[in-house]
């Protein structure tokens, strides 16, 4: 479980987040949604410690991240897996080497055991045949899968996923979404997904956090989302043509 308490973040004089309070449950897909530039990625970066919040704290299973010593933070980060928007795979390493990377840096296993673990992770994301390819030689969807394989290599307790569907076709998006959901259940991770893709939200979100006007504007589950009665939230979720059709259908019973 991850708790965010009274978190604010400013860049110079520009305030991006204001007094955010949220609890992200274990074994659930927690999705943070909001318009582009609403600060959802900044919130995720504050939670993982890439940004230092101007105010407030983040707790990982009761442990305050910002009060941890440097070494404790490094230890905690080995429990975090993250899939980046750009996949952030290392270009000079093959797919297999990318997945083995965190194991080589931290795990006390033999080369054979590390290779077996990496192969298991690649099989889990159904991309085991691409181990010898370089990231530039595989598609965007495959790169996301490799990113997920790398993120789960160390058996993470916490999984962060930033815009998993960006640049992907709808079918591949569904595959990636399902993979995130399956891994969350399988590894019992506290999963936080940053997205503005409503298909993804309607597909896999267990708990939804809507960031608007620097604040946590609304929080609820999928069934509550469509009937929230919240104007700003409705403006956001029903902006797409597909969701507008859903809205029309709901209104006409």
């Amino acid at each position, binding site marked *: 479980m991850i708790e965010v308490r009274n978190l604010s973040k400013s860049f110079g004089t520009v305030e991006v987040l204001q007094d955010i309070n949220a609890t992200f449950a274990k074994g659930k897909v927690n999705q943070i949604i909001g318009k582009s530039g609403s600060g959802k990625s900044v919130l995720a*970066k504050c939670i*993982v*410690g*890439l940004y230092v919040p101007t105010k407030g704290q983040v707790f990982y299973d009761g442990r305050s991240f910002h009060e941890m010593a440097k070494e404790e*933070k*490094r*230890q*905690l*980060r*080995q429990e*975090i897996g*993250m899939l*980046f*928007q*750009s996949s*952030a*795979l*290392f*270009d000079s390493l093959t797919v297999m080497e990318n997945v083995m*990377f*965190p194991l*080589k*840096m*931290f795990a006390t296993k033999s080369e054979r055991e590390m290779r077996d673990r990496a192969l298991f992770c690649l099989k889990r994301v159904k991309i085991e045949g691409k181990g010898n390819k370089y990231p530039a030689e595989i598609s965007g969807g495959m790169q996301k899968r490799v990113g997920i394989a790398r993120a789960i290599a*160390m058996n993470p307790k916490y999984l*962060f996923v930033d815009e998993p569907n960006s640049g992907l076709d709808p079918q591949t998006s569904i595959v990636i979404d399902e993979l995130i959901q399956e891994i969350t259940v399988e590894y019992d991770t506290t999963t936080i997904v940053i997205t503005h893709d409503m298909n993804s939200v309607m597909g896999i979100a267990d708990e939804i956090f809507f960031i608007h006007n620097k604040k946590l504007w609304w929080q609820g589950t999928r069934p509550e989302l469509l009937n929230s009665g919240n104007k700003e939230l409705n403006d956001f979720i029903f902006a797409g043509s597909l969701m507008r059709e859903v809205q029309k259908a709901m209104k006409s019973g």
Partner: protein
Amino acid sequence: MALLFHIGRYFMLMAEVFSKPERLSIYWKRTLEEMDLLGIKSLGIVSLLSLFMGAVITIQTKTNIDSPLIPQYVVGFTVRQSTILEFSPTIISLILAGKVGSTIAAEIGSMRVREQIDALDIMGVNSAGYLILPKIIATALINPFLIIISMFLSIFGGWLAGTLTGIISSADYIAGIQYDFDPYIITYALIKTVVFAVIIATVSAYQGYYTIGGTREVGISSTKAVVYSDVVILIMNYLLTQLLLL
């Protein structure tokens, strides 16, 4: 204020770079790779420049001191002194700042804008140490070898130009390069080389590491890496010369 900010941030980055590595074996493997990329792959340009610079110094010296009062061996002496004292350690380092510095800044800058450095940080890897320390060690170890090769080739280039054009005899040239030789100038040149190598690696890595934006900014960081490395090398060259030779 901006200068103080950058100097402060540079030293804070260096503190991160020199903190305890996660896996020494991985750092060492990366150092060997960097020695190949940043050092061995620069051998061609260093050799070519050195040969021609030695040749040009010989011809320039001969045409400018063509007097019966000045002995012929002065040509060889001048080539040796200018090569060892300044040309090889300083000019070659300035050229390496252009080649190696821009490579370092572009590589690290690209990793920054493509979130690969964030990925390292989130894994708990000391990204500054993992990316920068092997480059510093690699350049500090390999550049002295490059400079020694440069010294030999420059002096050889001078001999080649002098004897092929017939402006100086081989015996006079060799007498010149042996005349009044003080081995300390080699030590002086190598100390400068190591300092310049560290400047190239760290200033360029600093520029790349703090790149913000996209591909355009990576290009800007590469340019800044070369310019600032050159400026710092020139300042340090003056200070080291005063410190070591006076």
